[in-house]
């Protein structure tokens, strides 16, 4: 176990160490220890200001995609998972079949046709082309569905109905609270997926204006290999560090909640 923890943490340690180095000492010093001038602050300033501060713009885009995309995905999955768990309705078996079948389809296989469709609808190169596909999380739907079966007692819903509460009012005032651990687990997974999304924005966006951090960082990295491009490895490394700090923070902060949601909801 100790070996595995070292294996998991070593690259992250490497990242922290090397984001303190200038571009020259990156090349001249041992990779796993600090060396030369402590340039972390300069690197951060450099990352945030390079090319008129495009990093900050990408950060804002990423936040937008996460708030609308992951938030929307979690909301839709929660509504639908709850609906599947607590109601019987015509076509329910069909919904299961289609959604479960979709999980087996490689997401990347959908990307090219989705791009062509969106380009005919005039959506490519807009934030919508990134946000709309991230609104669907079949895994999230599955998780909420299992979780709702177990944690929302039907008696409570019956009681609310007898008191004359509408279904949506019951959902928002009573059920949602009981669903909270499952909801937060799904939120965490969709946030991670949207924050880390690379393939979809890479295809959909042709101008850097709407890039998220992932695509932007890779464009900085690829810049070194193009003719006449400026190598900015120190900024790529520091930018990588800045990209993972918020998501790792969210992870550690929310771990208490998602772990309870996962063990109740997972893999029955």
């Amino acid at each position, binding site marked *: 176990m100790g070996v595995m923890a070292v294996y*998991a943490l070593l690259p992250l340690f490497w990242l922290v160490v090397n984001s303190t180095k200038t571009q020259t000492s990156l090349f001249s010093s041992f990779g796993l220890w600090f060396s030369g001038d402590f340039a972390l602050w300069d690197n951060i300033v450099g990352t945030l200001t390079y090319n008129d501060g495009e990093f900050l713009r990408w950060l804002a885009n990423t936040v937008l995609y996460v708030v609308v995309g992951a938030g929307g995905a979690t909301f839709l999955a929660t509504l639908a998972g709850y609906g599947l768990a607590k109601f019987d309705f015509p076509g329910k078996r069909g919904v299961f079949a289609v959604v479960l079948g979709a999980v087996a389809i490689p997401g990347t296989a959908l990307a090219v046709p989705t791009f062509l*469709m969106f380009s005919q609808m005039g959506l490519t190169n807009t934030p919508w082309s990134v946000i709309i596909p991230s609104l669907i999380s079949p895994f999230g739907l599955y998780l909420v569905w299992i979780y709702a079966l177990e944690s929302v007692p039907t008696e409570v819903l019956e009681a609310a109905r007898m008191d004359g509460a509408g279904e949506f009012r019951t959902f928002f005032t009573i059920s949602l609270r009981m669903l909270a651990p499952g909801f937060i687990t799904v939120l965490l997974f969709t946030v991670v997926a949207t924050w880390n999304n*690379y393939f979809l924005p890479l295809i959909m966006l042709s101008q850097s204006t709407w890039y998220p951090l*992932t695509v932007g960082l890779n464009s900085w990295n690829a810049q070194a290999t193009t003719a006449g491009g400026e190598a900015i490895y120190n900024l*790529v490394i520091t930018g990588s560090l800045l990209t993972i700090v918020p998501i790792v923070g969210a992870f550690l902060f929310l771990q208490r909640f998602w772990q309870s949601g996962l063990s109740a909801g997972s893999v029955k």
Partner: protein
Amino acid sequence: MTTTSPVADALPSVRSRKTAGRWMGWAFVGPFMAVFLLVFVAPVLYAFYLSLFQNQMVGGDKFVGGANYFQALGDPQFWDSVIRVALFLVVQVPIMLFLALFAALALDSGRLRASSFFRISVFLPYAVPAVVATLMWGFIYGPRFGLFGSINDFFGLNLAEPLSSSWILASIGNINTWEFTGYNMLIFYSALKVIPAELYEAANLDGAGTFRVIRSIKLPSIRGAIGIASIFSVIGSFQLFNEPNILKALAPNSISSYFTPNMYAFNLSFAGQQFNYAAAISIIMGVLTVVVAYVVQISGSRKDA
């Protein structure tokens, strides 16, 4: 109408049908399904439609039936990429799942000090974007200022170069293992957590040792979780794209434009404008993935039965 019955818990949906409107469920499921149709179902149908046409220099799109599919079946570059991901799958997935299982069993044994520290640190790489993970490992691999370069310089060695064409697949496998071991560990661990304590008590009475408990109770109980993790990993391997595509900037000579089927389809579309042919390749890979995932599921459940 609303009297409670003893079986209410077991059959919640049957009962709610009587009280709520018959179509009420659609009010909850509908919004999800509407977006789902737009981003899942419509693209699949559209890809199938596209795959039946060819773009002609003169005269635009022409219906060609299965011609794109026949072309793919005889395309050495396509088969090259398929064989590469198949090799990747056969080696990387078992290693990763074995490590994840080992870690989950160690956490569950209750003998580990600081187990929550281990759990979170092994899981942490999952939160790291594939782009950042690949850039980090790519730099570590790199001969110029990477760790391997430093080690070679320091000891005057000439160790294998991870970015050379003979090692590149293993190097990508390492990145994937690093990213997803913790995720699979968590799936196994949460499945182990819900094993009823009575089973362990019974085993104790029968005098079963740790190893026996693992073999006879723990592994059979989490068979479903192992199956799901295997299928997700199989799907993931066939979709391999991010890591090789990003590494390409650091190792342009080791990674071709048809390194994996997905990269091939991507480059056909966006560098070659061959959308119809790319659509056919996507469909073939979709079908192949479903078939392989299905075979894995069947063989998995037969082995343990």
